């Protein structure tokens, strides 16, 4: 009897709950798990009645998931996903252009040029090498200064980098090398680098975490994870290779056909607001709103100048082709060749 009562009560609650529920936005994201909470809290605090449900994975996987669900999209908003991925979705006609309140206050370089913009940038994340000084001293490794240094034989089996097919960080590394070295020399460079790579990881954070743990002394990663780990006491130095750093913009976009358009716009508005940018600033050296970023002890003040000149549209248009070639060359190998 008691059980029956309890079930009845539960059902009643569930029904009442759905009748008066807040709007729940399904938001696909590639943001780091340790960033999500702060963003969600602040947004929900400023927008009572709207709740965020995150679906989180690496950039490549979120992109593949969104593309696979094209016929029947599950996401209302995409937030914190690489602009080069969002441009792929835009090409497929999956995004709903929207100019958030105050979008004119953001740097033009980090907002889609279309009107209304299909995506609006939040922050920039770029390549950084995590270099474990303790292990390097044991192994007699010199600190690399350039991307080309990494192809020296002394680093054989000492380097980890993210798989570009699954990781946004991995993808901008590869696209930057092709851009800076040229298509032909870029692949030649990666052939040589491949000989020194111990593992390609699933996520962009893992190489730096492995470097921090000394598992592999050199990890190709990005500046937020590197600075965070160094702050936490890991014996790593951050290296910014002198040929220039690949980068991408973490951006927000609304999915076409969302049933929660109003709430989705609220989230897009918030993502472009000063209060959101102040949260991004805690994690990133460059944010979309000029003048908000503060210097970070572990990241040089001229970080923005170290980034390469890059055309995100080119990265997006060639994404399929580049990833197919990369997978053919390096992922199919069961073991590092030669």
């Amino acid at each position, binding site marked *: 009897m008691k059980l029956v009562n309890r079930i009845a009560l539960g059902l009643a609650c569930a029904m009442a709950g759905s009748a008066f529920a807040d709007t729940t936005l399904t938001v696909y994201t590639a943001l780091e*798990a340790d960033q999500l909470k702060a963003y969600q809290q602040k947004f929900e605090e400023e927008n009572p009645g709207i709740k965020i449900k995150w679906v989180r994975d690496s950039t490549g996987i979120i992109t593949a998931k969104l593309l696979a669900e094209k016929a029947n999209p599950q996401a209302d908003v995409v937030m914190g996903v690489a602009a080069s991925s969002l441009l792929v979705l835009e090409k497929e006609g999956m995004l709903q252009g929207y100019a958030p309140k105050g979008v004119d206050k953001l740097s033009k370089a980090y907002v889609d040029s279309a009107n209304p913009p299909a995506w609006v940038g939040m922050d920039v994340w770029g390549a950084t090498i995590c270099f474990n000084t*303790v292990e390097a001293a044991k192994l007699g490794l010199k600190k690399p200064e350039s991307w080309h240094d990494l192809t020296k034989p002394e680093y054989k*089996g000492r380097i980890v980098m993210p798989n570009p097919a699954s990781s946004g960080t991995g993808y901008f590394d590869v696209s930057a090398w092709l851009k800076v070295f040229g298509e032909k020399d870029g692949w030649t460079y990666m052939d040589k680098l491949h000989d020194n790579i*111990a593992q390609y990881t699933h996520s962009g*954070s893992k190489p730096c975490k492995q470097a921090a743990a*000394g*598992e592999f002394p050199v990890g190709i990663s990005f500046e937020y994870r590197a600075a965070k780990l160094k702050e936490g006491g890991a014996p790593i130095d951050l290296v910014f290779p002198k040929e220039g750093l690949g980068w991408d913009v973490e951006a927000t976009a609304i999915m076409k056909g969302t049933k929660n358009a109003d709430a989705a716009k609220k989230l897009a508005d918030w993502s472009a607001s000063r209060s959101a940018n102040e949260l991004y600033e805690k994690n990133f050296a460059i944010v979309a709103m000029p003048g908000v970023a503060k210097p970070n002890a572990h990241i040089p003040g001229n970080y923005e100048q170290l980034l390469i000149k890059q055309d995100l549209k080119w990265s997006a248009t060639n994404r399929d082709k580049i990833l197919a070639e990369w997978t053919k060359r390096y992922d199919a190998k069961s073991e590092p060749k030669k």
Partner: protein
Amino acid sequence: MIALRAGGRIAADRSQQVAAGLLWLLAAALVLGLALPLAAILGKALTGDDGRFAGLAQFAAIVGEARFWDAVSNSLAVSLTTTMIVLPLAYVFAAALTRTCMPAKPLFRALALTPLLAPSLLPGIALVYLFGNQGLLKAWFPDGSIYGFWGIVIAEVFFTFPHALMILVTALSVADARLYEAATALGAGRIRRFVTVTLPAARYGLISSALVVFTLVIVDFGAPKVIGGQYNVLAVEVYKQVIGQQNFPKGAVIGMLLLLPAVLAFVIDHLLQRRQRALLTARAQPLVVRPQAWVDVLSTVACAAIGGALLVIIATAVAAAFIRLWPYNLSLTLAHFDFDNMDGGGWAAFYNSMKMALATSVIGTLMVFGGAYLAEKTRAAPVARQLLKLLAIIPMAVPGLVLGLGYILFFNNPANPLHFLYGSMTALVLCSVMHFYTTANLTATTALKQLDAEFEAVAASLKVPFWTTLWRVTLPVCLPAMLDIARFYFVSAMCTVSAVIFIYTPDTVLASVAVLNMDDAGDTAAAAAMATLIVAASALICLVFSVASWWLSRRTQAWRIR
């Protein structure tokens, strides 16, 4: 008088009707949770991108890729090597448990079965800390060579050892003493007796355990995912295609191919078991084991070494969970249990797993036992009974990865009226119940077969409906077997990764999946922490079940003693 008899017949008819209804209901559940998802995979594998029938075109395309054959040969190499290592180890251990007077047998037995409490990801994580570049014993595998072939093999040896052991213990615990006496009388030495008597008698057990180990390894993707490095195997390839590229047709095709070795092993095993029954005769004399100092000492040493190695792997993962920053800061911390600030789903994942495992345990036990009872003990609905028996043996041959993939393809189809189940806890529970159905069903059937069919015959002639017999006679007698099934379901559901990796959603993320995701994100220590929690929860439940089983058998099994 006539009225009374007619009344009895009506009661008996109703009993038959109820039994038939239940049988059809269970058969329908198995069709829904097993047959249709499998059919969905086959359909997907045969359908092209454009939605038209493509025949074997997609198989041909994949078989033409060098990458595929790399994965095939890697999978075969890993599976064969693991089998060749596990068999002798498990044989020695099983022989020590059954054929010697080694001390502390229950302890060794328990130690050898502990890997059953852990997901296959755990040995992978432990090996990083043992043999990785910062491992305690890194000199054994210099320059990260643990990532790859040997890493996978060692992890799989850990993972499959108890499975091989259980089969071999059963095979070795029956022996005909007369054969040994005859051999000794004819002057056969120890080795000759082993080759001519022991091995032939155990050969079915050996083949059976070899097949089980081979199949478990070739379909497992937990260990190669964590410790495989760039060494690509088929199971990981399915995962990469489905999760990484969302390429469902390709995943379905490789999944179908992965079904081949499992089905083949299953068929061979069944054919052999049929032959084995003729082996033991009614006149066989049980073998009495006598103490032999040097054999017992050697056995103890061997079992201590093997058990110790298994223990080291678990202990390493547990230790890793509490160390702040291996190898630079060895202070102890609970920081890695702060799952809510990490990838993987947070503490919710652990609670979800507990809920899922409990539900699987309760529903699975009721379903399996009910099904086995109705199929064995009633004569209602012959078609449904045969269907149920047939479907019940299929899960053994279906890798979890394939079943999970079938669930997405079947339930995530918007045209399916059961679409609402997609991603729900119900789907996860149903999938787990199905995935482990065969083993549970074998336990139930064996227990039921111990009961004479007379009970039902007498009940029928007394016009007692079947549920009265079930409640008064069958259930009390079969309680220990039911507890076994419930425990098996709980522990298996707690540890499974492969069956659920495709069908969880952010709301229903599970602990074993969290282990995988945290390792993917580089939070190895947190992954170890979650794996530790899984082992602890499984161990606790096993303990609870042992106590319950002891208490219940005192109350219900007293008749066995006399």
